[in-house]
C-alpha cells in the first residue's frame, strides 16, 4: 500500500493555489475575490506544513503563522475598503466599479 508523500501534498497545494488564482482572475464578485486570495494563501500553508513535516525543519511551520497573520490583516483592510465602496456604489461587483478609465 502506497503512503502519502510530500509530492501528493505539493499537488494538492498546487491545485488549491490554482483554484484561488483563477478565482481572483475570473470572479466578478469582489467578496469572492477576497476569499480566493485566502484560498491561495491556504494552499501555500498546506505545502509549507507538509515540507516542514517531511524534512523535520521547523522554519516552515513557523512561517505559516506569519502567513496567517498577514492574510488576516489583508482581509481586514480589504473588507474595510469594500464596505466603504459599497456605501457609495451599492454593489460589490467588479463591472460596477470601473470609474478609472482614460
Amino acid at each position, binding site marked *: 500500500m502506497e503512503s502519502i508523500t*510530500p509530492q501528493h501534498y*505539493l499537488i494538492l*497545494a498546487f491545485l488549491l*493555489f490554482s483554484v*484561488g*488564482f483563477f478565482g*481572483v482572475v475570473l470572479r466578478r464578485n*469582489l467578496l469572492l*475575490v*477576497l476569499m480566493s*486570495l485566502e484560498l*491561495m*494563501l491556504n*494552499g*501555500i500553508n498546506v*505545502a*509549507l506544513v507538509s*515540507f*516542514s513535516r*517531511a*524534512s523535520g*525543519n521547523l*522554519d*516552515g511551520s*513557523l*512561517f505559516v503563522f*506569519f*502567513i496567517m497573520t*498577514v492574510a488576516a*490583516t*489583508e482581509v481586514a*483592510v*480589504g473588507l474595510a*475598503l*469594500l464596505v*466603504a*465602496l459599497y456605501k*457609495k*456604489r451599492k454593489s460589490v461587483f467588479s463591472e460596477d*466599479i*470601473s*470609474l*478609472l478609465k*482614460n
Partner: protein
Amino acid sequence: MDSFLNFSNENLWIEIWPELCLALAALLILGLDLFRKPDSSRLLSGRIAILFQLGLVIFHLFDYLVWHHTFDRVAFSGMLSLGIQGDVMRSFFLLSSLLVSILGHQYLKSGSLRCGEFHHLTMLATAGLMLLVQSSHFLMLFVALETVAICFYTLVAYNRTSEKSLEAGIKYLIFGALSSSLLLFGIVLIYGVGANPEAWGAVFAGYESQDPLGFKYISNLLESNPNNLLLKAGVVLIIAGIAFKIGAAPFQIWVPDVYHGSPMPVTAFLAVSSKAAGFFVLLNLVNGPFLGMAEFLMPLLGFVATFTIFFGNLAACAQQNLKRMLGLSGVAHAGYLLVAVMASMQFAGNSDRAVWVLFFYLFTYLLASFAVFGVMGLARLKDEMDHEFSVYEDLVAKHPWMAFVLVSGIASLAGIPPFAGFIGKLLLFSVAFEAKLHFSLIAMVVGVAISIYYYFGWIREIIFKPRPSFSDETEENEKDLWVKIPSFSMFKLCMITLAICSLILGIWQGPFGDAF
C-alpha cells in the same frame, strides 16, 4: 535581566535604530492625534512628522558619512545584513518619506481628511521599506514586504470621500495580494527543496549555513542545482512577484488605474519609494541567492525589460490623463532600471558600478518625480483625479516658479540636458554597453526617443501660449485654478530646492561622481 541583555546584544538592535525611531514616532503621532483637543490645529501632527523626519535624515547622513558605519554586518542571526548599499537606500527612503510628508501636509491643508493617520502610515511604510532592502532571509523579506503593502493599500484609498480613490485601493489590494501570493509560492517551493534536497532530486552540497530560508543557504543550493525544475519554478515565481511590485510588463496592468485614483502625495510615494525598494530587492536577489541561475534568468529579464520599455512608452503616448501618463512612463523607467539590474548580473562579483548607476538614476528619479507631483498637487480641480493637458496651459505666465519646477521635473524625467535625468540615462547607456547588452541598449534608446514626444507635449502646454479660445467662461474659471502659496513657505522652498538639485546634479555629480 542578564538573558535579556544577552538577547539584545546578540541581535544588535542598535543597528536598526532609524527604523525603530520611525516606528515609535509613528505611534506617537497616532496617539497625539487621538488625544488632540478638538479646537487645536489639525495640522500639528504633520508639522511634527516633518520636523522629526528632517532631523532623522540629517542624523542618519551624519551617522554614515561622519562616523563611517559602513562596514558590512549581520544582525538578528542572519535575518538582516547591513552594508553601505543598504545605508544609501535607507537614506533614500528617509528623504522620500520626508518629501511625502511635506506633500501630504500641503494636500491635507485644504481637505477635510484627517492628518495624523496619513503621516503615521507613511512613516510605518518607510520603516518597512528600510527593513525590506536589508533583509537577507525570506521570512524577513516577506514580513517587511507585507508591512509596506498593507500601509500602501490604506494610503491609496486615503481619500475615502472619493469613489475613485477607494476603487484604486481595492484594485491595488487585489493585485498586490495576488503578487505576494505568487512570491510566497516561489519561496515555499525553494524552501521545500532546500529543507529536504534528496526527496526532490537535488544535490546536497555541504552548506555554510543551516537555515533553509536564508539567502546564503539558498545561494549554495541554487549553485549546485541550476537545473532542478522546482527550484526554477520557485525563482520564476519570486521574480514575477517582484515584477508586479515594480510594475514591469506583463504585470503592469494595475499601474495606470492605481496612479490615477490615489491622492497625489501617495502617487509620488508609490512611484518613488515602492519602485525603488522593488528594484533593490531584485538586485539583492539576482546578485545574491539567484546568482547560480544567472544563465537562465538573463534572457527572461531581457525579454521583460524590452517589453516593459516599449509597452510603457507606447501606452503613455496615447494617454490624455496626466496621472495615467506618468504611471505608464514610470513603467518605462522600470524597464530602463531592469537593464541596469541585468548589467549588474553580467559583471558578476564586480557589480558595484552598475549598482551605483542604479542608485544615481533612482535619486534623479526621486528629485524629478517629487517636483512634478508636488506642483500637480497644487491644481484645484473639480475632480482632483482629472489632470488633463489643458489644465497646464500657459502656466509660465500665471505662476513662473511652478512652471520652472514642473518643467525641470519633466525635463529630468525625459532626460534632456542639463538636468540630472540626462546624466542618469547616459550612465545607464554606458553601463549597458559595457555589459554587452546591445539589444536592450537599442530598446532603451528607442524608448527614450519615444518618451520625448509625450513629455514635450506637456512642456509645450506649459510654456507656449494657449490656443486662442473664444469663450469667456473658461477664462473666468481658470483664474483661481491654482492654490495660492505664500511667497515664503516651506512647501515652495522645498519644491524649488528639488528643481535646483536636479539642475546641479546634471552639471556636477559630486559625491556620486567618484563611483563612476
